């Protein structure tokens, strides 16, 4: 593969960024600033504290999913089961969140565990079973959806304790889902930049054979990535259930695609090894701002889908062009 050297003289790569994605991040930051400024000019309601919090709340679920799937995309894999795992974790959590039955941490933990288990199965099928990630997680997409329907009996699981529903509420004026996203993102950013396992995730995605020849247990690294991704999808499912105060077996359809879109807009390469959580967060933010802006501009939701699709492809196209 020919690697034309990047042409940015005097570039200083920050110590924590593995592959100098600053240029790409810079591009998306410019895009964000331009869009936010125009929205602020065009609609009076955009640049208000209330709307800012609103946008943050709207991106929190997609953000958590996107951070999780960043791990998998960095190893060069993909996870299509996220939306179904969200639904499964939601109904599992809701089932154990009836008032007066268990302390609130039980449904939360079980939801995350359900997601993590799905992720671990994905990881095993990919590494041990040597099934292509696309196929393995496509299978899980259907299996997890079916499990969600089985657990819930096909009906929404409502009647949850106020303690649990509080998870979708506010803390000191900030939505708790936003705090959770912040925690997950900060933790993942630190983890990928500062731990051995984090480095191995990049190495496996960059050149799997070389990573193996360097003594890295490639299978375990991938298994970790899928499990972490599944657990975060589980967390997203728990938060979603709390927000809508029900475990919906039909929730989360096509969520995985939005999450992958956010990661890719954020500059993470689908072939692995390049990118990171910072970009993912910006990608999720960009998608959220555009959705919110179109709402404020009273654009019909039919058109919103068209715009979103164009943005996803356009952002990646621009990114490729900048890199050349």
């Amino acid at each position, binding site marked *: *593969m*020919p*690697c*034309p*050297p*990047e*042409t*940015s*003289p*005097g*570039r200083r*790569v920050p*110590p*924590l960024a*593995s*592959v*100098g994605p600053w240029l790409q991040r810079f591009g998306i930051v410019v895009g964000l600033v331009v869009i936010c400024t125009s929205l602020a000019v065009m609609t009076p309601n955009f640049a208000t504290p209330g709307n800012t919090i609103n946008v943050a709340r709207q991106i929190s679920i997609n953000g958590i999913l996107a951070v999780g799937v960043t791990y998998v995309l960095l190893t060069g894999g993909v996870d299509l089961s996220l939306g179904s795992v969200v639904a499964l974790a939601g109904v599992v959590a809701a089932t154990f969140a009836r008032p007066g039955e268990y302390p609130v941490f039980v449904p939360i933990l079980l939801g995350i565990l359900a997601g993590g288990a799905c992720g671990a199965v994905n990881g095993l099928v990919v590494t041990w079973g040597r099934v292509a990630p696309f196929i393995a997680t496509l299978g899980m997409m259907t299996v997890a959806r079916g499990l969600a329907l089985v657990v819930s009996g096909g009906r929404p699981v409502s009647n949850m304790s106020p303690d649990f529903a509080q998870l979708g509420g506010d803390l000191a004026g900030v939505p708790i889902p936003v705090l959770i996203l912040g925690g997950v993102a900060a933790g993942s950013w630190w983890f990928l930049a*500062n*731990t*051995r*396992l*984090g*480095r*191995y995730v*990049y*190495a496996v*995605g*960059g*050149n799997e*054979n*070389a*990573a*193996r*020849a*360097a*003594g*890295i*247990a490639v299978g375990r690294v991938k298994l970790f990535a899928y499990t972490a991704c599944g657990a975060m999808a589980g967390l997203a499912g728990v938060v979603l259930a709390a927000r809508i105060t029900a475990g919906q077996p039909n929730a989360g359809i096509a969520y995985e695609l939005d999450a992958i879109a956010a990661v890719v807009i954020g500059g993470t390469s689908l072939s692995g*090894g*390049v990118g990171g959580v910072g970009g993912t967060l910006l990608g999720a933010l960009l998608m959220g701002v555009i959705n919110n802006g179109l709402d404020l501009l009273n654009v019909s939701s039919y058109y919103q889908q068209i715009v979103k699709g164009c943005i996803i492809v356009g952002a990646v196209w621009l990114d490729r062009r900048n890199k050349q």
Partner: protein
Amino acid sequence: MPQVPQSPVPLLDAVNISKAFAGVQALDDVSLALRAGEVHALMGENGAGKSTLMRVLAGLHSPDTGEIRLHGRRVAIRSPHEAMRLGIAMIHQELMPIPDLTVAENVTLGREPASRLLGRIDRRAQREEAGRLLGLLGADVPLRRRMRDLSVAQMQTVEIAKALGCNARIVIMDEPTAAISGHEVEALFRVIDTLRRQGAAIVYITHRMDEVFRVAQTVTVLRDGRHVATRPAGELDEERLIGLMVGRELKPMFAASVEDKESEKGRRRQQPPPATTRPDDAAEVEPVPLAVRGLGRAGAFHDVSFEVRRGEVLGLAGLMGAGRTEVAEALFGLKPAHCGAILVRGKPVRIRRPADAMRCGIGMVTEDRKGYGLVPTLSVRQNITLASLRACCAGPVVRHRREAAAATAGIRRFHIRTATDRQPVGQLSGGNQQKVVIARTLMAEPNIVILDEPTRGIDVGAKREVYGIIARLAREGKAVILISSELPEVLALSDRLLVMRQGRVAAELDPSGTSQEEVLKHAMPA
């Protein structure tokens, strides 16, 4: 007379070409004239700018300044496609055929003879055309065979035939003999000669001195991105050429390391290594670092047995496909052996993956830098520390300062030329990339070091450095296994030489008492 017949107007004239990457001047005001019917060797250490210059001609890079004239007319080459249209073809270092298509399909790729209606491909015409082109080269390659079943040399021939089919007048070959051996090289030289006599201009990049004088009529030397000299090959000899390449006169290549090794051998004879001199231990009691008994893997090698001692360089010689790399891969766990035993310090060990081998103190510099060596997306620093990241960690957390210090130590120790340790490793020259792989392997402090073709595709200066490193490893008491297809190299550096043939050990020779001819005699299939 304004023009001498020997020097017609150049077919292609690259004038004052400059090109910079990330502030590094890769080419600085370089000119090159290619004439019809001439093989023009382009020489220089890695990083001298040879490949960049060729990529400019092939339309992969556009020059910052300077111009390219074809038949005296100025042209802009913006893409490989345009280069092809102008009659410039590049045979890449890493060949890019389509493995599942047949020879005939690959030769005619992009110009398939097809019916006007619906574009149905006329298979017979396709085979005839491919056969005609291969015939022009005097080559015999089965037309219906799939590319993946061919040898590297045959693939090269197919690529050249493909270039011919596009009416290429200028053929650029980047180290075409790097991955082929013996009679295949001869066949390639015949093809090149045919091509030349048909009036093509050929640029030939190589690191092998003997080849230059065999095939080239003109030699251009680049150094640090600048043009150093262009001379008729007849006016040069090996020493003068190396002098031009490195900018200083060199003693014959192996002098330093061989002297070291000779004095080392003498020292060892007089005074055995300290570990074996303990009074109670007979010399045989200390177990050898690595012994292999009856090792085999179906279809690759059989019944391979040998030992490597402390402070010894064991050379493995043989033709391509003799099973040398496969034995190394088995020892390092990349492709585990099926039967036989590996004993490390006398104890049998099971090696099923590289991590197992590393735990046993085995390190390997793999043959295939791109495939099994480097992670191109990581920085120089991260590549150096990848195999021993644990040493730079407190628990699971990477200590960045400790890691930087370790990487910097490696960069200094092996003279890796890089702007900073944070530079992406893919931007380094081949020789420096190889030194990164060596630095990574040795950072784990292995007792047994396997080097598989450690000097392939790297320049003269880097080669000398690698020879020095090998001598130093032996001096430090490591057991070294050296695989090399360059016989002078493996003869000069080894203490003992095993010759492999068709997956078996054919002979054990004393390098100081043998000749290249004798080694080849054992290596050739009977």
